[in-house]
């Protein structure tokens, strides 16, 4: 029962923050909403027993990436977005039915495919998402992808430095 209440609260919070992210006109408000989404999702990961991922989610997403976003918003001095007049009627006329259709298809698929799929996800019932288990998998089965990821991040660091550097003539 505890798990149901927690899921309801934090899933609602995540979706509300996500909608707020898209609707807000000021980028700083969007960034704060994104932090709300990340925090709610971290709690949901805890409910799923993925303790290590929840910690990584908070540290990497809510910590590092959001600081990066806020820095860039501050650096660019981005103000409120102007609303662009016109040309919204067609998108509303076509977009709304397609949106409803998509929701219907997703609801149908989930109802028919995944209701009988195994045991319910219970609160505090899963073991095997801690740092030890994830680390063991990461350094044995997934050692090669792990090392390749380090190369990827090295390339990203070099790319970011080269792109954001001031040109020296």
């Amino acid at each position, binding site marked *: 029962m505890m798990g149901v209440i927690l899921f309801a609260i934090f899933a609602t919070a995540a979706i509300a923050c996500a909608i707020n992210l898209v609707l807000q006109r000021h980028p700083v408000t969007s960034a704060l909403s994104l932090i709300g989404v990340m925090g709610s999702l971290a709690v949901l990961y805890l409910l799923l027993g993925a303790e290590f*991922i929840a910690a990584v*989610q908070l540290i990497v*997403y809510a910590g590092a*990436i959001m600081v990066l976003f806020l820095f*860039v918003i501050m650096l660019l001095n981005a103000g409120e*977005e102007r609303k662009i007049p016109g040309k919204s009627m067609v998108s509303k006329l076509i977009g709304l039915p397609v949106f409803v259709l998509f929701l219907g298809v997703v609801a149908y698929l989930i109802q028919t495919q995944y209701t009988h799929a195994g045991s319910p996800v219970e609160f505090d019932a*899963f073991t095997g998402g801690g740092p030890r288990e994830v680390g063991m*998998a990461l350094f044995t089965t997934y050692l090669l992808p792990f090392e390749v990821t380090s190369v990827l991040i090295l390339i990203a660091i070099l790319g970011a430095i080269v792109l954001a550097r001031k040109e020296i003539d």
Partner: protein
Amino acid sequence: MTGLSLTTIGLGHYLALSAALMLIGTVGVLTRRNVVVILMSVELILNAVNINLIAFSKHLGQLHGQVFAIFVIAVAVAEAAVGLGILIALYRNKGTVNADEVDLLKW
């Protein structure tokens, strides 16, 4: 048992949440004009993928989904760093972060 149960949280609930977040992120990417907010919406989409991976990891009782989620997070970090670097270069050259005003490649 038909429909989504209200007394037990199953895989379907997490899949529905993931689909909703993915949809909201896609709407954000398509409708917003500020490139910073577009990048944030992409992060939202990547998070929706992570929910799926971890819910299936729990459902199948295996760890592989969680390890894959870590790789997704690493790729998201690299994407954010490079994307924001491109954004700064863009602002330095064009003086705007509005996606509509950047039409250098538009024919």
